[in-house]
Structure formats: structure tokens, C-alpha cells
């Protein structure tokens, strides 16, 4: 079972990218039984049950990098940004939870798509235009990832 997990705080603009992304996927595509979409919100250990049930996870999250807003970075389980993410402001890291799973004997394959935000200091439930604009690119990257696993979603029929 493959899970696409979008994490972030919906109330803090671009910080909520992951949540917006999952909502968008739900509207546009129908995934077969091999794929689960998970709105991870800002839950850390609360996602353990989901992660234990998955043999592969694709994570989408906003990560401040000092790079150009809208940039997308990709990490795999061999190069998880553990060292790079030392100075996090949110300590219940998804990375920590993954490490916990490994300690408990569960090691899913992991792909992380990290997006550099533009605005995550404001309060709001919408994305900045910069980040909104890269959603199609991000979508394409995620779908390519799924395709490489022979998991192809079908597009939802457009409403009449």
C-alpha cells in the first residue's frame, strides 16, 4: 500500500501546502485500492498507525530552505534530510516519526517532496500565488513517482 501524505498547518498560508495538495488530488483523481491519500495535518505520532500500514510513502511538505520560493526538492530514504533539518521550529518531526518506525522494525520506502514557501508568517487558509502556481508541477512529479510504481490514477470526470 502506498500513501501520499500531505503535512502542514492549514491556518498558516503556505505552511499548509501539504494539506491543500491532498485536497486537490482528491478532487482531480481517483486512485485505485493501492493508494491512500492522507491529510496528515500537523500530527506527528498520530500518523504512526497510518505509516505502519504503508510500505511506501510520498510526503509533501513546505520546508523553508532559503532557496527561491516555489522550488521543489526531492529526498529519498537514503538521503532523508535529517542533518539538514536540525534547526526545526517544530520538534515532533515527521523524520523523527519515521525513525521511530524504523526502530520498531518498519521501514517503508520514502520519498519527500519539500516545497520552499513564499508566505508562511501570515494567517490564512489560502496559498500564496507563487506556491499555488507550482501545484501542477508538484502534481506531475508525484504522479510520475506513482507511475514508476505502476500506480496510475484515473482522472475524475469533470462536473457537468
Amino acid at each position, binding site marked *: 500500500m502506498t500513501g501520499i501524505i500531505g503535512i502542514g*498547518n492549514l*491556518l*498558516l498560508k503556505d505552511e499548509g501546502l501539504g494539506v491543500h495538495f491532498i485536497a486537490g488530488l482528491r478532487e482531480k483523481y481517483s486512485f485505485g485500492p493501492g493508494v491512500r491519500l492522507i491529510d496528515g495535518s500537523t500530527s506527528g*505520532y498520530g500518523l504512526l*498507525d497510518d505509516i505502519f500500514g504503508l510500505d511506501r510513502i510520498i510526503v509533501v511538505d513546505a520546508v523553508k530552505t*532559503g532557496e527561491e520560493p516555489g522550488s521543489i*526538492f526531492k529526498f529519498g530514504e537514503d538521503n532523508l534530510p535529517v542533518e*539538514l533539518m536540525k534547526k526545526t521550529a517544530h520538534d515532533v518531526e515527521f523524520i523523527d516519526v519515521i525513525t*521511530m518506525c524504523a526502530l520498531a522494525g518498519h521501514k517503508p520506502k520514502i520519498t519527500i517532496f519539500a516545497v520552499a514557501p513564499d508566505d508562511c508568517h501570515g494567517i490564512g487558509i489560502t496559498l500564496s500565488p507563487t506556491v499555488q502556481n507550482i501545484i501542477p508541477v508538484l502534481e506531475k*512529479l508525484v504522479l510520475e513517482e506513482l507511475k514508476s510504481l505502476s500506480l496510475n490514477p484515473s482522472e475524475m470526470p469533470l462536473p457537468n
Partner: protein
Amino acid sequence: MARKIIVDPVTRIEGHLRIEAILNGNEITEAFSSSTLFRGIEIILNGRAPEDAGLFAQRLCGVCTYAHYEASSWAVENALGIHPPRNARIARNIIKGAQLVQDHLVHFYQLAGFDWVDVVSALNADPRKTMDLAYAHTETPYNASLARFEEVKARLAAFVKSGQLGPFAGAYWGNPSYKLPPEGNLLVASHYLDNLNILRIPAQIMAILGSKDPHPQTTIVGGISSIADIINPQRMDDILFRIGKITDFVNNAYIPDLLTAAMFYKDEAIEGVGGGLKNYLSYGAFPMTDDQSPDNMFLPRGVIFNRDIGKILNLDEKKITEFVTHSWYKYPNEKVGLNPSVGITDPDYTGLNRDGSLQEEGKYSWIKSPRYENRAMEVGPLSRTLIAYGKGNKEIRALVDYVLRKTGLPVSALFSTLGRTAARGIETKYIADALEPWTLELIKNAAVDQSSWTSYEMPSKEITGIGLDEAPRGALGHWVRIKNKKITHYQIVVPTTWNGSPRDAFGNPGAYEASLVGVRMSNPSQPLEILRTIHSFDPCLACAVHIIDPKTNEIRKFKVS
């Protein structure tokens, strides 16, 4: 000679916290707590329909998921003057109870575990002696066998060796403040691993009644929408089955581990290390009667001043005021606190000292200072346990007395870091043991009564409501004003605001700040004792965006677009 220690960020908590401690020799004489818990996120609720308040408010935090949702629903129901029907009341209690148990279990093992457990010492443990210790406080120890303890040792060794330390990184193995023998360390570490599987279960219970986790969404203003699950015997049986697994772990791993810790860390409990404030407050939670009266809550409401457990005072919400004297906000008159119903959130960042340290005489935190009758209060499991004890709650009394008897500790030992940690465990067992009777009561009631929602008409005139609830970390309050069927004013005071607050207009420190006074450090360059004390409150601060240090250019090689 005084020196200053800065711990920033405090690790193994939710969010970003900075502690500055002044030391005289090795003893802390003063402490300052600063955080980026930005108040004001509630403005997202202005202009929204009150029926949706919970859905937005719960996004504040995915960790104490459901806590905000319920408090928000209570605030709006309070404004409307309605109560949910019995099925909804009980179902909400079950969801909330499962979440509290999960939250406390995560805290003791994954967050606070390494404050008490030296993992490297565990690698030297004798599995046979560990078996003996496993039987010390229970006749049916959880997942205890020689093979299991060998396996845990091997796993820990591999992890420590791999260097990919993750949550084990930045720890202080070998620090003299660790007091457990190797076997105690191995025993608790093995439960640390077991807990990772246990944690899945409360989440599943919440998903059954709440349709998903995180952020269950079946609670609605007036009731609950998961009635189809409530009347389904299979679903309710799924819940009962899971409750059994949780109570097994709580009774045969968690409580025994607490007792083990209490035996070896006894001295600091007796000394009252980390006790801090002498005032405790709880709004009460888990209504047991359909009128949701605070007089009949499973965790009772109350106030204690000066550690006088014999005199539990009634709570008067009007006595709650927030100060910003030492917080990065502006008030018209900063000598006066404001009740949240008339709260103002006007940011006023005045910066740090030139050396980057906090301006202790001025403003130094994004956390406001809630006070009760102008006194600093502690909130959380210790407050709730003391208030319940003082009110004569039979089960809490029995549990507290059991722990004190088994460890030989006096009641005064509760006023300490260890006491606070034990209270969390006591409360976990108290709630976990109640989940089954609540579920059975729900099944029985739903067989004859399938109402799940109290109807209402949202009026156009202005109405105000307050939801005073208890999140796992302590008192949680939502204040709402509604006019023309839209929210016009909303204020939220979370438990960490109470506990993590800076000084108020009178110079009274908050709970974290007070708890560190008198704490002695074995090695001031290893702030283990600071972490242990602060962790005992289970801090939870603003979720903020994850950051990769831009100074390392390493990130660029991973760019794909």
C-alpha cells in the same frame, strides 16, 4: 558567581521554546521562558459561520487533535444555550478519552523517556535481572521475556552504532543525574518500543467514532454525526477490543515503569525539585450528566491556592485575565490584565538584547500571561489530580495513595517534576479504565435512543459563549462572540499559555519559570535537568514551518524544480 545558560530550542517538545536560566554555582536561581507561540491565529475564525468554528479551530494543532474541536463546539453550544444529547455526550467523551491516553503515552515514552532513561546504560543490562524488575510492580508484565529484552538490546545497539540517531541525538548518556540501573533503563526502553505499536490503537478508536484521525470531524454543534457507527454492534465491538489492548499496556507497562522511576528518583521528589508554583487550576472535563454541568465532570473543575489540597475553591471565569507586560503585545494599560472575552492581540515585538539574549526586564515572549485572580497558576495533569484528590474523588485517591504507598513517598512529593510525571500516569489509568464503561453505556443507551443532535436556530442577535475544557496538557478555553450568524470575536487560551507564560505586571513568573528555581545541574553544559523539568509539563507551542538551515548549501543538490 552567576552565569546564564540558554537552551534554545528545547528539544523533544511540540513547537519552539527557549529557556534562559541564571545559575549560582550549579543551582538555578531564576529562569525565563520565551516562545514563538503566536496568539492571534484565532483571527482566522472572524467572519466565519459558528457551525464551522470547530473545523477551523482544530487545525491549530494536530497533536492534541480534537481538544480544540470540542472546546469550540462547547463555546458555540454555550452561546446557543443547548446541550448535545446523551449519545453525543458519551461518544465525545470516548473520542476525547482515547486522545488523552494516546497523548500521555507518547509523552512519557517518546518525549520525556530520555530524561529518565539512559539508553547507553541499557546496553549493559542483564536480561534476567530485567525480568525480575519487570515483575516488581505487576504480576503480568507487558511483553516481558528474556528473548524480548535481548532483542531490544540488539536493536538499540544497532541504532546507537548507526549514527542515524534521530530522536536519540543530542542526549546526555552517562550524566550523573540518570539514576536508573541498567535493567531499569532496558525495561523502560523496551516499553518505549512497544508503545510505538500501542499508540496506533487510540488513533483507531478515534477514527471509528470520529471518521478519521487526525482531526476527527463527527462532532458538530449540537451533537455528533457518527450515529450510524454508534448503533452498529461491529463498530462498537471494534472499540471495546481496542480498549482492552490499551488498558493492558497502561496497567502492565506504563504504571509499573512510573513506579520504577519513582523508586530510583525518589530523592528529588522528596526534595520537591521542579515543584514551582503553588497554585493549580482545572476547568474540568468529560461531562458525566446530560446538562454538562461542571459540577459533574469526570475530571473535576477547581482551583487550589498555596498547595492547600484540603480547600478546593470554585472557579470563576471572570477572574481570568491575561497580561502582556512582558509579552510582545501592546495593551492600552499594561498594568491591567484583560479577560479573554475582551481580549486584544496587538503584536509589539521589541527585540532581544544585543547579545541575542532575552530582555528580562522588558518584553521577552510571544506568550501572554494568563492569571487567575492575579495569581500564576499551573494547569495540567498534576492540577487535575490534586483537585480531584482534594474533592474526594474515590478512584483518584485510591490511585494516588497506591503510588505513594508503593514508593514510600509522602503526599508532598507530588509537588515536583516526578510528581507531575506520576500524576500524568495516574490520570491516564483513570481515563483508560473509564473507556470501557463509557462504551458499554453508549451501546446500552443507543439501543433505546438514537438521538444524536439537539436542534437549534442560530439567532441574528449578538450571543456570546465560553467553552472551558481540558486538553491533555491542561486548561483550554475558547471565548466566542457571534452576531448576524457570524463570528465577530474569538479568543483561545491554551494550556501552554498558562504554563509557559512570562512574568506578569506584578513580576510573578509562570509555571515553567518557577519550576526551574532551585534545580541543580550535575553538569551545566548538559541541561538534562532543565529538559526533565520543562518536559514534565509536556509543552506544546505553535506549529511553524519546518526549516532547513539555509547556511548549508547542501539543499540545492536535491532541487527538482
